[in-house]
């Protein structure tokens, strides 16, 4: 069981509030991703949940039990660190068995659990190696193995994929998702990469400057961002944000159009502009278009489109999928 409730959790270092009064419910079995730019407090929030930092005020319950002042070891949580934090002087076997040893488990039980975890993670052949002899992906698996054997109430991941190369990152991302499907244990996952957040999460928590900007499922955040920050942060390439006269036509301070919601045509479009940069990936095409009276607009089109830099093209935004924001940056309905 792993239901975690935060109420008015605040953390300050000296004068500075790193986390300012966060309320959050994490349901049992949920895959929750904390996402936000660097310095937004997402890692600190995770460390507060882990018990590696003290909360300045507020309280926290794990499975209905007061946990605000419990030491990390007593919270029943397991953590996978960004640097993996494997014990370099121990073999993989001993690394995975370490939490069991600390819990005073017998050698037989330890061996059984380690074998089971190694089997799940394809580490059986590497059990007698040291972390230094493993590849990045294997180290990552050992770190996960060390977390699994404890059968924790929840897993905490602190940017676990950021040290891997791009191809491996995709594979590991899928492995972690599959692990979640088979274990059905609560997972809290911190990342600055919105693609990871979108692909893995049941629930995304967007953080900015120590505050929660929005909580919701990936598609909720995509379709109805609550404010400009979330609109700009979720989605790739970023949503085009247009202010000024053009926005005023739609009765808003800022108008948001996702690049994929703009049609490209040769004649009779809504807007006209000159293509600055064009990128052709085969499956998609990306253009930076300098639109008359508006400025630069990013456009994404499916498949190949025979448009080159310097061409003059017409753009038509999908009027159904426009986002409108008021002067405070909040979304208008």
């Amino acid at each position: 069981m792993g239901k975690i409730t935060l109420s008015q959790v605040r953390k300050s270092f000296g004068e500075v509030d790193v986390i300012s009064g966060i309320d959050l419910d994490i349901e049992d079995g949920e895959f929750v991703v904390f996402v936000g730019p660097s310095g937004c407090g997402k890692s600190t929030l995770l460390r507060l949940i882990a018990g590696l930092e003290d909360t300045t005020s507020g309280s926290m319950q794990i499975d209905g039990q007061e946990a605000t002042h419990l030491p990390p070891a007593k919270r029943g949580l397991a953590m996978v660190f960004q640097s993996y934090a494997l014990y370099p002087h121990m073999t993989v076997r001993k690394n995975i068995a370490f939490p069991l040893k600390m819990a005073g488990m017998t050698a037989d039980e330890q061996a059984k659990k380690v074998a089971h975890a190694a089997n799940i993670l394809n580490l059986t052949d590497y059990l007698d190696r040291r972390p230094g002899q493993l590849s990045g992906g294997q180290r990552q698996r050992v770190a996960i193995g060390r977390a699994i054997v404890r059968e924790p109430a929840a897993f905490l991941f602190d940017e676990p994929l950021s040290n891997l190369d791009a191809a491996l990152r995709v594979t590991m991302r899928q492995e972690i998702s599959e692990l979640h499907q088979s274990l059905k244990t609560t997972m809290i996952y911190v990342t600055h990469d919105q693609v990871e957040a979108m692909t893995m999460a049941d629930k995304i928590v967007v953080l900015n400057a120590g505050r929660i900007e929005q909580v919701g499922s990936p598609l909720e955040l995509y379709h109805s961002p609550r404010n400009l920050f979330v609109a700009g942060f979720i989605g790739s390439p970023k949503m085009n944000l247009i202010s000024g006269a053009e926005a005023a036509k739609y009765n808003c301070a800022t108008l948001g159009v996702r690049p994929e919601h703009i049609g490209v045509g040769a004649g009779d479009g809504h807007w006209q502009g000159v293509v600055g940069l064009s990128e052709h990936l085969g499956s998609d095409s990306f253009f930076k278009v300098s639109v008359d009276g508006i400025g630069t607009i990013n456009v994404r089109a499916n498949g190949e489109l025979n448009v080159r830099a310097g061409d003059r093209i017409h753009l038509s935004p999908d009027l159904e999928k426009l986002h409108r924001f008021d002067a405070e940056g909040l979304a208008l309905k």
Partner: protein
Amino acid sequence: MATQSSRSAARLMLSPTVILLLVWMIVPLAMTLWFSLKRYNLLYPDRTGFNDFGNYTRFVLSPAFGGAVVNTLILVVGVLVITVVLGILIALLIDQPIWGQGIVRILVISPFFIMPPVAALIWKNMFMNPTNGLFAEAAKLLGMAPIDFLGQAPLASIILIVAWQWLPFATLILLTALQSLSSEELEAAEMDGAGAIQRFWYIMLPHLARAITVVVLIQTIFLLGIFGEILVTTNGGPGTASTTLPYLIYKEALLDFDVGTAAAGGVVAVILANIVAFFLMRAIGKNLDA
């Protein structure tokens, strides 16, 4: 970044060391202060009572005092300059690809393992002795008159002996620092047209700054207290030519049995050492932060 409980654990684990060192520092210092204000001469046990600052004026105004302070500084600075400069040169030399590097390192480090009284004794007797010493023999061989090193240049001779003991330490730290310099950095400088001397001056020396700092700090700590080498070789003489502050205090306490004045000298020495420490730590603490 840590939790309240780990902070209190840290305080708890730090306290034995801090308390022991505090006691070790404060108790003798307090006693020294107390003695320094009293008449306390082992030869005249009947003279007691407070002497106000008489001991201090006696110590500070004694003709040997000024010279002792200067000698102490010359000794410390002299050894530092020799060990750092030669240390850099030797480190540069050993860092080159050479045959038998392992043995060379062992030979170079060896003087560091020699206990100070042994070093002083063998240098004094077997090398610097004007009749039987090897230096005298070498002078004879060259047809020159032997030099009485400890008689004619006592402080310089002591500096030589102490520098010999500390040169390995400086060399090894500087060598380790030098080996941590990436060859890419040097190659980049070479591509930029820097010659050997410019590479040393603009790339290697700045890279060694931290190591030099550490060498200066640690050696100063040990050199300020140099005493045994002087006792064994020159007894502070001839006259007071090689009397340093520690030796002067020793002379008051154990040769003139004037504990009161020696204590006053101790307090003065502690104050001076703290002044040196203060400036050294200021200058160096900054360099060690990076």
